[in-house]
């Protein structure tokens, strides 16, 4: 059991690092030259991946998956609120620009 918990934490860390490295690939794909260009796809993907990482940190590192249902639901709600707020602000900002 202790071994599986240890492995689970390592897998969580590995996934978090892999997502971080995906950003590197996204950056190269988005900017063909050295000049940065605006991209809705990259912005939305960056926000979504960051929030996926946030949820993994909450569930695995902060041990929310062993917590009472209320805390589990509140932490999921927090991630959803962050997603709506960030993506909503971006969409509204673009529309008003």
């Amino acid at each position, binding site marked *: 059991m202790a071994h599986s918990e240890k492995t689970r934490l390592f897998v*969580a860390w590995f996934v978090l*690092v892999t997502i971080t490295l995906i950003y590197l690939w996204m950056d190269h794909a988005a900017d063909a030259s050295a000049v940065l260009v605006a991209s809705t796809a990259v912005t939305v993907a960056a926000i979504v991946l960051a929030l996926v990482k946030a949820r993994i940190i909450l569930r695995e*590192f*902060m*041990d*929310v998956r*062993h917590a009472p249902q209320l805390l589990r639901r509140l932490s999921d709600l927090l991630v959803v609120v962050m997603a709506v707020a*960030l993506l909503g*602000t971006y969409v*509204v900002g673009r529309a008003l620009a």
Partner: protein
Amino acid sequence: MTTTEHASEAARPEEGNRVPGEPDMWFFVFFESLLFTSYFCVYLYARTQNERAFLRSQSHLLLWLGIVDTIVLLTSSWVMARCVQHARAGRHELARRFAIVTAGLGVVFLALKMVEWVRLIHSGNTLTSSDFMQYYFFLTGIHAIHLLIGFVVVGVIIYQLSDARRRSPRTIETCSTYWHTVDLFWVVIFAMLYIVR
């Protein structure tokens, strides 16, 4: 099964029956997360109103340095989670060593951040040089303040684990929750400042 494994299994939290650390710390986590989210919203809105200027200033950041910084902090969080596992299993000396490594990785993160700040300032990118740099220095600065508080928090863990009379599993979990929160904020700050286009 060894004695340590028995202790580990006994100390392992059961699904859905306990809050990790003090509930008050979780109020702090939710409050701070919403506060940081409001900062990110203001930044994103300002960014959409002047994308070209933000992209021009953003190009001065070194992505690879941000990636290394992120991996260092994620690793510190993983080591901290292992520290809590060891503490729960009664392996206090091992847990103390993991807490020291966590603090060490925090120092590496902060040192890399300072390298980037100095590099940017030397190239003329300061708090007042552009809107993007204002947000960059504000967000990374306020995160660094949280990290400095994190060193005190890890110090509490090391202090507690050093002496059997002072050990409190709940306090250790509370302190680790704080450290992970600092990590959680950074993964979003990193996406906002380095990746968003």
